[in-house]
């Protein structure tokens, strides 16, 4: 079961890699694979048992898979130190301001839709 699901995931990733090479060099292969799988699921209308099993198992260990690439930061210590405050400043300010904007906008749109539905 698990293996069948994994095979599907690998297949979509490889398909993405091929398309990336042929037409869409702007988009990374796994991303194309993700979009293709999403389209496939929308057409089918449901997630098959093996696929959901494989996806869940793999995504549970996603943080672990991310550790080795993150360790690569040690190579860039000098670049980070140089721009440290600019980086932290941009990240902190932009996340907090966008959070407020997104929350406020969504709340407005939802209440407006509710009100309109109430009228109709």
């Amino acid at each position, binding site marked *: 079961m698990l293996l069948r699901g994994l095979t599907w995931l690998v297949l979509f990733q490889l398909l993405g890699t091929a398309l990336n090479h042929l037409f869409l060099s702007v988009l990374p292969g796994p*991303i194309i694979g*993700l979009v293709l*799988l999403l389209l496939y699921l929308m057409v089918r209308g449901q997630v098959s048992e093996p696929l*959901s099993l494989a996806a869940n198992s793999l995504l549970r260990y996603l943080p672990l898979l991310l*550790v080795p690439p993150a360790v690569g930061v040690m190579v860039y210590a000098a670049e980070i130190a140089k721009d440290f405050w600019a980086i932290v400043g941009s990240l902190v300010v*932009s996340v907090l301001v966008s959070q407020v904007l997104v929350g406020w906008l969504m709340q407005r749109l939802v209440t407006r839709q509710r009100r309109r539905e109430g009228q109709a």
Partner: protein
Amino acid sequence: MTLDWQGAAQSVIHHPLFGIGITLGAYQVVLAGYEKTRWTFLQPVLLSMLLLIGVLTFCGISYDEYRQSTQILGTLLGPATVALAVPLFLNLRRIRQLFWPVLTTLVVGGVFATGLCLALGTWFGTDHMILMTMAPKSVTSPIAMLVAQQIGGVAALAAVFVLITGVIGGIFGPALLNRVGVRHAAARGMALGLTAHAVGTSVALQESEETGAFAALAMSLMGVGTAVFLPLAVSLSV
């Protein structure tokens, strides 16, 4: 007879399995600590990374050697990224009625979050390389790493910027949203998931199931949206 301790230590340290061994070890130690305390700022990836950098420096292993020995984990990251389509599909099905509010908020908020970070970065005078790495910071790490690399940034740094963003958003987000009077569960979820991805989503799940569902949806939509449109936007503007 004297035993060659030094030689034994060297052959252990430079064995191809050593990198995987310390990665698995560090991750489990950190995960156990995180599960006990549940402090948002103890993000397992961030702490494992610090721990591993310490171990590698101590043992005198270069990053290149470490990367080669953990290559198998990196290879699995591709299918794991593809697998993100499954939760996205399940989330999409759940929120049909709020389709337009969600889509509008996603487009406006997503462009704003990315644009503001780039504007601030330019204003503070950061390198182009750092700037391109910061652009996908509101997106879940596997996608952010791919996108950053694609547009001229650095995958490793992107993973860390993403985590910093997530931790800040996750810790201060709920209080900030209370402050500005955002009480609706869907709105809080969108705000947390769109800007602070997985960390925000886990915080949102603690508030309520509905908040969590919207956070998960916002996170995956923002991820796919950024993955598709940011490289296109960058390739058109250069």
